[in-house]
């Protein structure tokens, strides 16, 4: 049972992460995403954390690494699915997630990616 799933949506990837994901699987996920993003010229990755009840500093670290890596591969990262308790805990734990975008759900995440695509085309 792999604790994550990757669903392609055109030139965007939708990644769903399961609650009990371990360090090793996370590392594999990052590797896989790196390869997929560069091979298929993916411009955006949406990470859905709605099945994750706990975001600790370790997961946050991996997410930050992911966003940094994808930025270097010219792809944007958007995180969705953070519940109110998770957000409160992230603030209380002073866990920062800088350089990452957030959206309310997958639909709005796509909006955000489309908007930035438009911005990028204009410039």
């Amino acid at each position, binding site marked *: 049972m792999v604790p994550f799933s990757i669903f392609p949506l055109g030139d965007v990837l939708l990644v769903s992460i399961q609650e009990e994901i371990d360090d090793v699987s996370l590392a594999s996920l990052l590797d896989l995403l790196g390869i997929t993003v560069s091979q298929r010229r993916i411009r955006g990755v949406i990470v859905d954390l709605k099945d994750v009840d706990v975001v600790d500093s370790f997961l946050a670290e991996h997410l930050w690494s992911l966003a940094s890596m994808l930025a270097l591969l010219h792809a944007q990262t958007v995180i969705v699915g953070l519940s109110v*308790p998770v957000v409160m*805990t992230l603030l209380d734990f002073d866990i920062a997630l800088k350089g990452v975008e957030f959206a309310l759900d997958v639909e709005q995440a796509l909006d955000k990616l489309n908007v930035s695509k438009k911005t990028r085309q204009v410039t």
Partner: protein
Amino acid sequence: MSQRKLVKLPDSQMYDTECPVCVPVNKTVGLAPIRSLVRCSLEEITISSVDSAAIMTIINELGHNILRHAGRGKICFAVIGHGERLGIRITAEDSGSGIPDLAMALKPGFSRDDGLGLGLPGIRNMADDVRIASLVSGGGTFIEVLKWLS
């Protein structure tokens, strides 16, 4: 085999402890056992979703620390009572290499910036009482976290 000279902090007598349950944490079983133990225990008591998230996050942080820095150890969990108040007491123990600079590890910002973070400042923010004993060169680390529930 050198004797473990782990410094154990004296038990506080200010609350009536319910039996702590200890679960091993190692690369084979990961954090799944301690997570389900805590999750099930929390279901038995009235607790807000924010408090529950905070406790699970503390467990995760402590567990990940053990896995990353010592490879194996154990985490004990107990629901405690003091009068009408309910709280939880978590202890995380390992015989790893210890925390070299306790002061640094507790400084805010340390957990975010260089990836060597132990999430300790965050845990200290969230909990009511955190006590740490750590001996370097094989002495191990013992962390006790106390949190009262609203």
